[in-house]
């Protein structure tokens, strides 16, 4: 419990009164003990000390009462004639008057400090409750979870049963209550619904619809009501105290505001993502439509030339046109498979990992590339202790194929290509080295981006081959990088951590 309820206050008053009485009793005993030794004006000081002791620990009513009582006791016990309120010597009237003034002033001042402290504690308790609420809710992105967290926090802070009901299809429904929520009776659904619709509190102890076990507060943000907070008062009814009610309402409001902020953030995030996807799609569309149309244009053009003017063309020209139809069709085919690969890889990829010898994979890839290698010299240097790699054989083969294909595309036909593979303690690596023109400065940073086209390509591609390589390497927990070789040419290096194997 962080704040004081009415019942606690009542109890506290009695404790304070008992304390004051005890202190005054002690003061009186001390005064009686010293009555023969000390002058009555000095005995008054003992009572003043008692008043101060009471005042620092009590509310103002108790302190003032203690002041008056102490003056009475002083008169009764310390001023002759003893055990009467009569004052023998009229000069003691001044003592009594001064004592009363001093005692009352001291007690009211101390009591003010006391009540300020109480207020500060109460404020702190509220601030703490709201802070905990904000902190708890800010990590929740789902409304349902947030409501549950807020309800359980409220339960802890207010020491009574609290549930939050969220609307289902615009209505508060009690039909699907959780186990805890079953404490709130089904018959009160309409009350909760009323509170939700009106945005006003109602129920047990409130001004409206009081015929319920629980009472209901709207959980209301700046724009909308998120749900209804149902509070089951305990038998002592502490929750109905004004302070508790205020704090509870503040709590509900704060919960709503936090929820609202979370939802806004999520909406903003979603719209940003949608926009990015949209941009990506339009970039993809323009790139793809260009890449698809260019070869199609060549094929259509060459075919229609052959059909309409075939007999007027020289044999060599006809063969040329047929050749370009076939080449462009091949290019189209490669583009389509690249696009399919990329699409497959941009979702969540499920790898079919198995331990495979790397030379097996490389061999299969080179075989598939046979026609495109056009007799190009390709050497493979694999270290003897190369362990089998745990990869998706098909995807890794695609990676090797794309890397070699890329090297073929960007280097003169007469230059050799070299594949190397080896391992360190931490990883297995593979390199494709060429002796072409290499990368222009800064280019190696971009070559793995989708739709990036290298500057020196002999044949135009869609700029997807290396992006696919990167996607495959990353899906395996590996990495890919590119650099220029010291003596000219480019090298692309793929690494696969051994832990992933």
């Amino acid at each position: 419990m962080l704040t004081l309820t009415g019942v606690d206050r009542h109890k506290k008053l009695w404790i304070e009164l008992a304390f004051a009485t005890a202190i005054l009793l002690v003061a009186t005993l001390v005064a009686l003990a010293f009555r023969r030794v000390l002058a009555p004006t000095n005995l008054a000081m003992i009572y003043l000390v008692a008043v101060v002791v009471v005042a620092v620990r009590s509310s103002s009513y108790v302190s003032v009462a203690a002041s008056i009582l102490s003056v009475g006791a002083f008169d009764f016990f310390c001023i002759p004639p003893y055990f009467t309120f009569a004052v023998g010597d009229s000069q003691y009237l001044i003592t009594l008057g001064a004592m009363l003034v001093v005692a009352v002033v001291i007690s009211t001042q101390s009591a003010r400090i006391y009540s300020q402290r109480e207020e500060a504690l109460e404020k702190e308790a509220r601030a703490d409750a709201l802070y905990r609420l904000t902190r708890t809710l800010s990590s929740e992105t789902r409304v349902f979870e947030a409501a549950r967290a807020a309800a359980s926090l409220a339960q802890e802070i207010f020491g009574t049963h609290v549930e939050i009901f969220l609307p289902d299809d615009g209505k508060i429904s009690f039909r699907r209550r959780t186990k805890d929520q079953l404490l709130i009776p089904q018959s009160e659904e309409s009350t909760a619904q009323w509170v939700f619709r009106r945005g006003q509190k109602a129920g047990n102890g409130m001004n409206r619809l009081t015929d319920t076990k629980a009472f209901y507060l709207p959980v209301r943000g700046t724009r909308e009501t998120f749900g209804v907070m149902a509070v089951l008062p305990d038998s002592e009814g502490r929750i109905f105290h004004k302070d508790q009610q205020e704090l509870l309402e503040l709590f509900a409001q704060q919960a709503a505001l936090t929820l609202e902020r979370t939802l806004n953030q999520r909406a903003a995030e979603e719209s940003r993502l949608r926009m990015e996807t949209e941009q990506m799609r339009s970039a993809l569309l323009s790139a793809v439509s260009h890449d698809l149309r260019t070869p199609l244009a060549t094929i259509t053009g060459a075919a229609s030339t052959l059909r309409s003017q075939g007999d007027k063309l020289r044999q060599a020209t006809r063969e040329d046109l047929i050749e370009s139809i076939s080449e462009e069709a091949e290019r189209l085919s490669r583009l389509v498979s690249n696009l399919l690969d990329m699409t497959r890889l941009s979702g969540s990829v499920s790898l079919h990992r198995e331990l495979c010898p790397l030379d097996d994979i490389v061999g299969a890839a080179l075989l598939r590339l046979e026609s495109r290698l056009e007799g190009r010299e390709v050497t493979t240097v694999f270290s003897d202790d190369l362990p089998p790699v745990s990869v998706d054989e098909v995807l890794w083969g695609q990676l090797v194929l794309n890397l070699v294909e890329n090297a073929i595309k960007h280097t003169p036909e007469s230059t050799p290509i070299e594949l190397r593979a080896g391992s360190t303690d931490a990883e297995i690596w593979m390199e494709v080295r060429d002796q072409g023109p290499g990368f222009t400065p800064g280019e190696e940073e971009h070559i793995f981006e989708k739709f990036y086209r290298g500057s020196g390509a002999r044949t135009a591609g869609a700029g997807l081959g290396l992006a696919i390589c990167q996607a495959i390497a990353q899906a395996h927990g590996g990495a890919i990088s590119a650099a220029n070789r010291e003596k000219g040419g480019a090298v692309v290096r793929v690494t696969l951590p051994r832990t992933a194997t």
Partner: protein
Amino acid sequence: MKALILMVEDDPQIRRFLRATLAAEGYRFQEALTGEEGLAQAAAHQPDLILLDLGLPDMDGIQVIRRLREWNKVPILILSARGQETDKIAALDLGADDYIAKPFAVGELLARIRAALRRSSAVSGETGATTLKIGHIEVDLERRIVKVDGAEVHLTPNEYKLLQVFIKYPGKVLTQRQLLSEVWGPNNSEQAQYLRVYVAQLRRKLEPDPTRQKLLQTEPGVGYRLLWDRP
């Protein structure tokens, strides 16, 4: 008489160029546009080879293979635009002979047709030869001796068994499951790891450079094939 080929393919443009190609090679051919039609024609005409598209309008090509194989051993060559390895494996495991992905070059298609026809005729009338020459290797089936470039190499019993299976189906893609059950028996068809090890060992013994697959070709994700046009 040249072989009779049944093409089961719903796309008119593909049929058109297949017709031209097959006619140019002198094959006789029948056409079916649906799976049902294909099954009916296969029963009626007893073709020597079936070219089967997997994406048919009335049923899945896999289904066609299953039903054909209930009563017929005719070589089936799959033509498919689906690139998924699972489709290939399913088709091959059900008994398809080969698989060629669209788009394909005509030369490749004709080579596969020739190989499949040759295999089926060899199965029906065993050649009886006891020594085979496959590229640079020589296999003496009777004495179980394998020579690479004239020099004898020692194969373990399992390696030799594996090689025998490949020789039995020259040029045919054998799925991992098929190889495993042929060599180690039908109960071991799931141990792909064994197979990789033995193929790698066999390859090292028979091929000078495993990254240049001249004899045993890996079909990634599917299986292996012996690159050999049996004479």
